[in-house]
């Protein structure tokens, strides 16, 4: 995958991967946001499972 937005360093400014591809930038950004908040949800589920393991009568 060619992520480079530049072909030469002469006059280069924003040179981060996919800097000139706003659609790709948006997809990467959205995946990052989903991963971030998905991790919190996953952590919460794991936490409740751990409590239930020690407290089987814990309400759902």
């Amino acid at each position, binding site marked *: 995958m060619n992520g480079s937005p530049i072909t030469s360093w002469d006059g280069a400014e924003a*040179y981060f991967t996919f800097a000139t591809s706003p659609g790709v930038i948006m997809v990467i950004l959205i995946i990052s946001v989903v991963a971030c908040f998905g991790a*919190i949800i996953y952590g*919460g589920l794991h*936490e*409740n499972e751990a409590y239930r393991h*020690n407290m089987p009568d814990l309400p759902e």
Partner: protein
Amino acid sequence: MEQQLAELSDKLAALEAAQAMSSTINAEIFYWWCTGLMVIIHAGFLAYEMGSSRSKNVLASGIKNILAFAFIVPTLFFVGWWIYLAFPNGFVPDLSSTYGAPWDVSMGPNLADNATGVFWAAFTLFAATTASIFSGAVIERIQVSAFLILAILLGSVVWILGASWGWHPTGWLTAKFGYHDVGAAGVVHMIAGFFALGVLINLGPRVGKFNADGSANDLHAHNVPFTITGLMLIIVGFFGFLGGCIIYIPGEQWINIYGQPATLSAFAFNTLMGFSGGIIGAWVKTRDPFWMMSGALIGIFCAASGLDLYYPPLAFLLGLFGGFVVPMAAKLLEKAGIDDAVGAFPVHGIGGLIGVVGCGVFASGYPNVEGFPPITLYGQLIGAVVMAALGFIPGYVVSALIKGMGFLRVPDEIQEIGLDKTKVPIKAYPEGSIGTMPAE
């Protein structure tokens, strides 16, 4: 002769360009190392929070603290930096520019922009500091998922909105009221402390903290030396934090966050004098090394709003006053039935309040930049009320919603077993020297 003049002119232009780039890189380096020093704040909070926990919860407290830092970084990238830049006028964003939005060309490697990355990094560490302040208050009984939602709300939304209002060159609090808070006593410490208070009311105390008659028990920290060392590390990191509060303009005098002339020397005088005053005040009041080191922080916060202005012995006296009275505020909070495990509300909320109001009492009359009003007690009081409300209301409301959804508090039975045993896959002290010594 003409050729020599042309060569000389070219050399001069090259020298000027080299000097300008050297100055730009110096500024970039300055904020890089301020950010690095601020990471030490988090080493300190980690030690402080784990030391303050009982041995059965030490790793769970550490996990919570580390995760606060980890989640603040991306969320401040996603939304926080944009909030700072877009909301100086209040609740209505300025949408005239995408600068600060996570898809903007400034938000990544850019050879035409040496500033955005290091400023974003410094603000990210300020944000992580607010989340860590809150983190200590709620140890040993908050669910991690609830904590993370609240930490992100505080670190990547609430405090940065407060910074946009009161810690920004055109923020409405300074533009309309001359609000002055160079060291972030209000925008970081009051907001974080009052946010913590709002959450603590809904979260409730740790199991065993209060008796049926309302009297309080001491739930002893399992490692006080670790806690005290952590507090000293926080102090070390605050030299990065406060360095990051002043603007380096290559080739010119420093300016503070409001664009007024300042010097780093002023910050050095008053940070150290406030620090020592806070320790001495807390020592006189308590003789307790935990409070003495907390007093060092309190002293800095009490001087923080006017770090660029005070006669240093005045910063010392403000610190002394804060170090003396804040432990009393902690006692009152406990009497009110609120279990703030590390004193986050008194240290940061009340310490910051003294800092903001103190600046109005002692530094009224200092001019602002052209067109904005000078410092007044009235302006500082308005700022203090705004910062308290901006911290307390979201903390209280959102934690009440999470409580209503049933995932704010760790069940009491689990608290009694211990969080480490319940959900941490490793043991803090497998050799069993702390908290598990067999009876003689």
